[in-house]
């Protein structure tokens, strides 16, 4: 067999995505985390007293809480909270129109394909550069419908009453150490409110990037779909490569009121040095439907388990995720569903690809509480291994307190097989083409749920990740 040249994926990554334009920092906090830093952030933003207090309280919780005792202890142990900058902003305040966005930032976005995406598809862009939103536009029709789509800081300024009512109600700061940290230092993220009965026809999108060394990103997203409302929110991330570690720890809270529908689509492609430790949870009331569509490609360590709490009768929750773990990466992802009310239903589909020393773990929880009669849940985990040193593991937990429920669980592990490769190659496809076709087929159930441009982007990213896997 011929040996193909070894390609350093990270290097190629750097060429394609690893650009970083020089940015003038108007404000950044000193490295490290303490009450002074929290105070600075809150003052800089000119926040109301209650939010400032909430931040300080959360910081105390962060200090008091131990690190998770599970998951990848080795990688978690390497996080140095004192070596991270918790807040920086690229420009003084959010821009209102594309023309006002600084040229170098525009260039970065252009290389990520944002303007094009917007022209074609966007309802509004909330593009986060560093820790502050620099560009934010909302289509007129949304405003006419009464839909609020803002960055979280503006949301707090302009709709303090709504934010105060819901902030931290789905994910309180004492939920876990990283949720506490986020509550203390959050900046940016999206705030969406959809009034009763309003259907937002086009997906709302936001683009996030980390653009500085040892820079933390702590977005806070809050989406409220009022009774009978419908909304699809999409976020996608691409990050440049840096040598030292970066921490990304977002909190996303969704509230789907009676009969509402929320779909939240994410594709994350952080550079391979990023810790991506995210808490995502949705509250689904009577007859509400919440869907998490979650794709994780990049990062050093991802720990993310999108959750749906089914609080009202007949509510439905769905979590569809893929994870791609390349060399040195650990994707510890999964899903949680809590059935609190009768006749609620849920479906978890998890697909992971581990390649050449990469590790993907599925960690899931399905809980059916006493009194939640007639619930149905389906869990399907599918792992694909590429190369000899790839690793996958599954940690499913089921806590079922009722008898008249239907619980299905299915887990499969397959290896990207010689027989599949030989079959495709015998039809003229190169080994690389054949591998890519098999992997694309594997993630097809996920990709077909994405809007066209994201599907194209994901396939491109997967192709990039698969480069150099031949031989």
């Amino acid at each position, binding site marked *: 067999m011929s040996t193909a040249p070894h390609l350093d994926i990270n290097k190629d990554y750097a060429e394609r995505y690893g650009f970083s334009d020089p940015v003038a920092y108007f404000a950044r906090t000193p490295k490290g985390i303490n009450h002074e830093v929290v105070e600075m952030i809150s003052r800089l933003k000119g926040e109301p007293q209650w939010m400032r207090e909430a931040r300080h309280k959360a910081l105390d919780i962060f200090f008091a809480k131990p690190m998770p005792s599970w998951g990848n202890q080795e990688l978690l142990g390497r996080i140095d909270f004192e070596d991270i900058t918790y807040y920086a902003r690229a420009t003084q305040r959010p821009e209102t129109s594309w023309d006002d966005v600084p040229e170098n930032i525009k260039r970065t976005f252009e290389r990520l394909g944002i303007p094009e995406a917007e022209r074609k598809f966007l309802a509004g862009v909330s593009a986060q550069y560093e820790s502050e939103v620099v560009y934010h536009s909302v289509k007129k029709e949304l405003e006419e419908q009464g839909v609020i789509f803002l960055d979280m800081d503006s949301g707090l300024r302009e709709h303090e009453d709504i934010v105060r009512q819901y902030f931290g109600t789905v994910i309180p700061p004492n939920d876990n150490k990283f949720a506490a940290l986020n509550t203390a230092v959050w900046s940016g993220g999206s705030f969406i409110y959809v009034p009763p009965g309003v259907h937002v026809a086009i997906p709302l999108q936001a683009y996030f990037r980390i653009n500085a060394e040892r820079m933390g990103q702590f977005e806070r997203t809050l989406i409220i779909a009022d009774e009978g409302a419908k909304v699809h929110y999409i976020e996608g991330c691409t990050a440049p490569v840096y040598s030292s570690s970066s921490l990304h720890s977002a909190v996303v809270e969704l509230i789907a009121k009676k009969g509402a529908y929320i779909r939240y689509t994410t594709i994350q492609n952080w550079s391979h040095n990023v810790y991506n430790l995210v808490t995502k949870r949705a509250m689904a009331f009577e007859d509400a439907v919440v869907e998490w569509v979650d794709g994780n490609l990049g990062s050093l360590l991802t720990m993310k388990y999108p959750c749906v709490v089914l609080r009202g009768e007949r509510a439905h929750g769905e979590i569809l995720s893929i994870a791609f773990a390349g060399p040195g990466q650990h994707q510890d992802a999964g899903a949680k569903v809590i059935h609190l009310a009768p006749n609620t239903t849920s479906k978890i589909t998890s697909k992971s690809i581990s390649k050449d020393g990469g590790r993907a773990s599925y960690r899931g929880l399905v809980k059916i509480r006493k009194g939640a009669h007639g619930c149905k849940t389906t869990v399907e985990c599918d792992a694909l291994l590429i190369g000899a040193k790839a690793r996958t593991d599954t940690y499913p937990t089921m806590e079922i307190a009722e008898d008249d429920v239907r619980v299905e669980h299915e887990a499969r592990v397959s290896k990207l097989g*010689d027989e599949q490769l030989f079959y495709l190659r015998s039809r*003229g496809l190169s080994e690389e083409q054949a591998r890519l*076709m098999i992997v694309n*087929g594997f993630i097809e159930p996920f990709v077909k749920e994405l809007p066209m441009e994201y599907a194209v982007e994901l396939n491109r990213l997967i192709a990039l990740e698969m480069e150099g896997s031949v031989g």
Partner: protein
Amino acid sequence: MSEKRPVFALENLRVWVGEKEVVKGVSLAVYPGEVHAIMGPNGSGKTTLVQAVMGHPAYTVEGKIFLNGEDVTAREPDEKARKGMFLAFQYPVAVPGVTVASFLRAAVAARRGHDVPVKEFRQELLRRMEQLEMDPAFAGRYLNDGFSGGEKKRLEILQLLMLQPVFAMLDETDSGLDIDALKVVASGINAAATPERGLLLVTHYQRLLNYVQPHVVHVFMNGKLAKTAGPELALELEARGYDWLETSVGGGA
């Protein structure tokens, strides 16, 4: 036109599976327009032979393989395919998530060396599918995923017709087919048996040969071609089985 040369030839081909020698020196030549049949008892290594010829990485090969006069012994399977070698698998492999149409489009582009416009490709695909009495919806299904035995075999023949190889090996394409499906598949094979192309049918039974007339029949036993003759040999094998050949092979050639 100069004198005809074989589209496919083997020169003393030997194949090992690990330490075990399964094919112990096979030579044959298939000329343009010829249909050859390799028959042999179950477990005699017929599948190993054709998979090794196609370039399956599990086998070690010695001797020479020629395609259109070119020595392709050391070529990768995809190179052989692009040069016009084809193998219809006995057990086609499923690739979930990849549609028949997208797979075929990629394969056709690889074989022809250029992309085929979508519309043109679709028309050709639908025409070929109709020829094999396949539902157009078939094109949107995932490759061999949940296919019945008969559907898989039809898809192999569809690929044969779409890829237009120089030389094709068909491994037990008749197995697992009911009589109607067999007729359809046989008509597909006959359509593929053009004056320029060479075909090699690998089969255990005479059944397929009632519908596809071979010019040459080989019996493959104990790693060697025990006998080569005209189509009448197939009928003799059907009547007498393979045991009577055992002694002549045992005697050594």
